């Protein structure tokens, strides 16, 4: 229990809010690394995922290759890459992007796949082009799932960046890697708690974002409402299935 008190004392000590090793600096670095990871992973995975979901093609290849890469142990990958490309930010960044791609990809293609085919057909019947179907129907209806993919990737990235401190890099892992060899457990625990807190905040922010980006129509398609109104059209039914899919995902 003393260690816990010592941990909170460590977190509250003003000395730990100054200098290059200050808590706000380390948190900032962790956030910065995470945002960079999400940005790069999104640039790669979002277009790929949307293409797979829209065309229904390339699923086997596009899904399995990232999944196989994801299976590589990230710490080993960081060390291997560091020996190849140097000890800067690049090595862990590549490793973390590889970690973040599969959830973003899955969110994108499963989001598009969850849109009822009849809704898509209806859009086409109205004369929409492929791009219009994608931008005006498929993406809005699946924004919640796409954001869900980003949410899962963000959570993994913000937590896993900790291991990059095996290299001379910043971030919250610094506290853990610096404290372990000298058995400074309060510092280690404080580092871990900060990672946990940051992960929770990240998750909460994305949960909020997920709510905000969900179109009102999709939100209205909650089970209770749909059940109350029995005059559902095909589109309505599609939305209902979509909504229940989201719930299962959670």
């Amino acid at each position, binding site marked *: 229990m003393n*260690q816990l008190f010592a941990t909170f004392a460590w977190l509250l000590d003003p000395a730990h809010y100054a200098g290059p090793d200050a808590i706000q600096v380390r948190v900032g670095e962790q956030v910065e690394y995470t945002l960079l990871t999400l940005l790069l992973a999104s640039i790669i995975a979002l277009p790929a995922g949307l293409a797979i979901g829209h065309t229904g093609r390339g699923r086997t290849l596009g899904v399995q290759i990232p999944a196989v890469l994801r299976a590589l142990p990230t710490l080993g990958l960081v060390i291997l890459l560091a020996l190849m490309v140097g000890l800067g930010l690049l090595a862990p960044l590549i490793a973390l992007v590889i970690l973040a791609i599969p959830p973003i990809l899955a969110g994108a293609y499963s989001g598009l796949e969850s849109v009822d085919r009849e809704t898509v057909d209806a859009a086409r019947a109205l004369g929409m082009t492929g791009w219009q179907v994608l931008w005006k129907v498929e993406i809005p209806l699946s924004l919640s799932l796409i954001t869900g993919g980003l949410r899962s990737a963000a959570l993994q990235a913000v937590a896993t960046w900790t291991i990059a401190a095996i290299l*001379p890099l910043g971030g919250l892992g610094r506290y853990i*890697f610096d404290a372990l*060899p000298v*058995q400074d*457990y309060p510092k280690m625990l404080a580092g871990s708690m900060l990672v946990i807190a940051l992960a929770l905040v990240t998750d909460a922010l994305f949960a909020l974002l997920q709510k905000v980006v969900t179109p009102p129509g999709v939100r209205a398609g909650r089970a209770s409402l749909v059940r109350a109104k029995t005059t559902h059209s095909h589109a309505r039914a599609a939305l209902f299935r979509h909504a229940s899919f989201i719930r299962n995902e959670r």
Partner: protein
Amino acid sequence: MLRRRGLVAAALIITGLVALSGCASGDPLSTTNSNTAGEGSAGSDTIAIGSAAFPESEILAEVYAQALEGKGVTVKRSFNIGQREVYLSALKDGSIDMIPEYSGNLLQSYDTNTTAESSADVYAELLEKVPSGFEVLDQSQAQDKDSYNVTKEFSEKYQVNSLADLKNVNIPLKLASNPESAEHPAGVEGIKRLYEVSVTLVPISDSGGPLTVKALLDGTVQMADVYTTSPAIKANHLVTLDDPENMILAQNVLPLINSSKASAKITQVLNNVSAVLTTDDLIKFNTKSSGSAKESPAAIAKDWLAGKGL
């Protein structure tokens, strides 16, 4: 909804069980100095051997372990326990009974103000400073010290062959070493105190391994802490800086053992091994385990013991 509630309940139960089992085995972070060392394991013909988290320590642990097994002692292996601060507490709490150690660093961990320098002085002081309940056995000639290395180009450009020469270097110096080097008496602090040179630590947690060497070779740092027995020094033509102030103590390999396990038989077997172990053997161990061969510690130890007829 029901299923979700079930899941929540299951999660709560599991969390509870984990918490309870945590209570049962005591707070893993508590710093109690229980003096029950060794009582956990069986009779004196069983010994738990540990090693630090780098290959050479593991190979040495294997050498001592197999030598003991050859004489009918049962050995329990708990290798790769991390840094000294961690495995010394493992020794204290009785989870291991013996570990191959390096005389100088061990002495400094007990007494940071020690003035002993030579192998003999360090060993003599170590015999006194080891806490009661534990002892060091005979030391071997084999030494594995930390050493500060620079590239050949750097050494020639700035005329640096010794830590004392660093004063004349007019560029900021960065040192690649483990994070604990920041406060270590032979680390950044020691270099400042004895050689009056400020170096910035670039923490790399691989104990002078490939990442540390990589940092030196690609110019991320100007100095790297690499163990003297690392094949990487010769392979990369690194220049090991002299240490005229003897900041880095002698580091002879010796077994640190729980006194209750140091029976006449075990002591004899371990001393016989230490009597013939040399620094060259350590370099060979490391070459075998890190080179293209990548032999296992067990195989390397077996070969060496067979070669020495032990």
